[in-house]
């Protein structure tokens, strides 16, 4: 019963106000057991208190019953408005590397341009097993691999994308007035208009350029001088410890195979292959007691991951255990 059966006139303003204050505090995420005890005592002290809290709680509940809840929920992400404050980002150890990457890109930008204080962030995500193509407002197209997520901030002077999870293929619309920056876990990329793949493994970023030229930086490199220019057909790898691999040539048919729902590897490390498989498999695949640095050459359809795993297990003498949610590959 959501009907609100108590009129405002029957409840003193001070009591209604206090009831709202309690409700707001309960849902704050900071309510302690002492708060709950105090609220219980407050409710027991006068029946009007209970009536007031019931009334505001009914309003709170009604918000979840709006018929346009889907559109309103969509607007939550679309209307996210942030003010730049790097100290906020560094509130969790996991975010330190990301914060450093963002600072790097912003410092690059601040060398020549006025830094806007307000901007909008929009998040896009793909589901497990789903490649998803997203067209950004500037005309750029981003193909997300399975279980991937990006946050996009477009302003009049810059275009910023954080690759929060997974991997993506960026086809960047040319706009010389607005550089396009992509920040990953261990590196960042700046371009004006080109196409490249930003792949993230367990502890590695790999950038492969299919058109034009990009500039790749480490979080510690906050000037353009430290950036490396990567040309079309070239690839660079950056590890979590900041180690940068040599610039090498790559086969776009291999790197872009996932766009056509295939996974192709030539001497790839096993744990990176498992990371990719997890983007397309409904169960969580994990390794136990296995040397993850085994280099493997493999080609498979993302719909046939189970068969590929069975082949791997047979080839290396591993054992496989599977339940409704997990696939564990174990070296006994």
């Amino acid at each position, binding site marked *: *019963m*959501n*009907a*609100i059966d108590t*009129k*405002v006139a029957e409840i003193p303003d001070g009591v*209604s*106000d206090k009831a*709202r*204050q309690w*409700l*707001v*505090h*309960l*849902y*704050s*995420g*900071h*309510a302690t057991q002492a708060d*709950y005890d105090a*609220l*219980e005592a407050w*409710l027991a002290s006068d029946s009007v208190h*209970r009536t007031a*809290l*019931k*009334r*505001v*709680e*009914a*309003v*709170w509940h*009604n*918000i*979840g*019953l*709006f*018929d*346009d*809840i*889907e559109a*309103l*929920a*969509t*607007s*939550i*992400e679309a*209307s*996210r*408005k*942030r*003010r730049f*404050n790097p100290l*906020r980002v560094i*509130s969790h150890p996991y975010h330190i590397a990301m914060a450093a990457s963002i600072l790097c890109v912003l410092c690059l930008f601040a060398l020549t341009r006025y830094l806007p204080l307000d901007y909008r962030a929009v998040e896009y*995500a793909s*589901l497990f*097993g789903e490649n998803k193509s997203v067209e950004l407002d500037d005309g750029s197209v981003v193909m997300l691999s399975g*279980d991937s997520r990006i946050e996009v901030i477009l302003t009049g002077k810059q275009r910023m994308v954080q690759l929060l999870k997974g991997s993506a293929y960026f086809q960047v619309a040319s706009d010389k007035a607005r550089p396009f920056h992509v920040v990953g876990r261990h590196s960042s990329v700046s371009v004006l208009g080109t196409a490249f793949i930003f792949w993230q493994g367990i502890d590695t970023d790999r950038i492969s350029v299919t058109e034009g030229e990009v500039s790749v930086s480490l979080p510690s490199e906050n000037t353009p001088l430290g950036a490396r220019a990567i040309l079309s057909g070239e690839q660079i790898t950056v590890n979590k410890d900041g180690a940068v691999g040599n610039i090498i040539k790559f086969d776009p048919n291999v790197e872009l195979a996932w766009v056509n729902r295939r996974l192709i590897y030539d001497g790839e490390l096993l744990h990176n292959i498992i990371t990719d498989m997890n983007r397309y498999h*409904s169960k969580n695949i994990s390794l136990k007691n296995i040397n993850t640095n085994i280099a493997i050459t493999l080609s498979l359809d993302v719909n046939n991951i189970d068969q590929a795993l069975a082949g791997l297990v047979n080839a290396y003498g591993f054992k496989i255990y599977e339940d409704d949610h997990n696939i564990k590959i174990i070296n006994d």
Partner: protein
Amino acid sequence: MNSVLFEAAAKPVQVAATLSFSSYKKKKHNQDRPGRLCGIGANVMQSPELARHCLLERLYRESWSDLCRQLQRLYGNPPDPEDIAQEAFTKLSQVKNIDDIENPRAFVFKIAFNVALKSIHHLQRARNFLSEQLNNEDRERQDISPERIVSSQQHIEATHRGFMKLTQKQRTILMRSRIKGDTYAAISLDTGWSQADISRQLKRALALLEEAVSECDI
């Protein structure tokens, strides 16, 4: 699944009872399976049970992907969006008077959000406490039913009218707290608004919504 459907064709009464959304999960190819009972070519003289089945199947086809995507955006993973969506559809399939639901798509989204919020510890603790303290009747509030919505439709509409008059900032905070289940610390981190300001805005918004509801009672 097909065997279930063929059995249902012979005995339409059993359709609602045998329909299992777990069999739909992650099997989108089933959407276009041949010989299905609903859609173009379906018998126009459907039994109520078969009509109900078709409504659920159509809703599943049209809403599943959007719902999963929305759930992932709002609540991440875990909780598994597909598990939540599946639970929402299962709950919907168990609703007896499904014809009373004016907007089934909105209804399944409401159920799904409600299910997702149950996985957020601080919200669930607050909801349990309020249900226990306010009265036993409200304990059922954690589940959404067509009857409950119909009985309070007037107040929901008044709340919605009041909601649309709030400032954008108040609406954002309300949605993030009530629908997304964010703590104020998380909202503050994303928006730059102080937690004290967020609390003030919420209190003010709730006062305005209570006022809007009270006006409809006059």
